[in-house]
């Protein structure tokens, strides 16, 4: 094979793609990534929280199950319960309660409780069949002259 023929073959391999197609390629790539980004749906859990009221019926409140949580412990009706046992404990407490009003579980969180922990505990309450109600304590600022 002669040298001139070899050179000719190499030149054929190094053919640049037409520059006019670059925009079209970029356009199609953008469409591809946009579609990929938009098809990923959000996942989550809906939660029914009753509308907030300033005061509640004291007699009804005393009948409700109360779950208090802090960064270190979960307390159900005054008894400390391990976080993995909350569902079983609530199931036994809610057994026999048919009416929605009787299945209300009052959730009280210490200010330092993390969202991660709160989601775990409230998830267990819902699994046990409880209806979550939040008990919030308002801070009042009193200025003394």
């Amino acid at each position, binding site marked *: 094979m002669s040298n001139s023929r070899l050179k000719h073959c190499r030149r054929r391999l190094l053919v640049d793609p037409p520059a006019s197609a670059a925009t079209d390629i*970029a*356009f199609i790539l953008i469409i591809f990534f946009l579609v990929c980004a938009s098809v990923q749906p959000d996942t*989550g*859990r809906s939660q029914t929280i009753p509308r907030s009221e300033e005061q509640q019926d004291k007699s009804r409140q005393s009948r409700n199950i109360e779950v208090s949580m802090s960064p270190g412990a979960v307390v159900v009706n005054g008894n400390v319960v391990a976080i993995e046992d909350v569902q079983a404990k609530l199931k036994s407490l809610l057994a026999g309660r048919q009416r929605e009003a009787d299945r209300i579980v009052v959730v009280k969180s210490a200010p330092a409780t993390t*969202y991660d922990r709160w989601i775990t505990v409230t998830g267990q309450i819902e699994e046990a069949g409880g209806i979550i109600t939040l008990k*919030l304590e308002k801070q009042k600022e009193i200025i003394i002259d």
Partner: protein
Amino acid sequence: MKLKRQKFDASIPSVAMGDIAFLLLIFFVILARAQDDSHLRWDPASSENVANVGNPLASIVIDADGKYFLNGKQTTIDSLSTKLGSVLGNIPSGNRAVMFKVDKATTAELFEPAIEAISRAGGDLVHILEPEKEE
């Protein structure tokens, strides 16, 4: 004597179409980015039972720094309920879903008032969580 009219070629240059479409696309992408909350930094909590949520009307984010955002715009906890109420308007109950995106390390003193604000505005609370990974 007849004068010939000079004819001008008035066709739109088709070579530039790709560039125009490209710039329009960039423009709309930037416009959409300004309205959503994808630029915010938050680490979702995980849960066993999660389902796909639809397209809620509003999203509230509490980011890793404890700042509140309504539909991508920073807001304060005091004005959250009012602003959310105006976003939800008179939409009937059941269609008033609000995405609640909270960084998992956020404490109750920050996220509970936001839940209360959603409740006061009549929103349907949807916690955005990631599915728990099996070990």
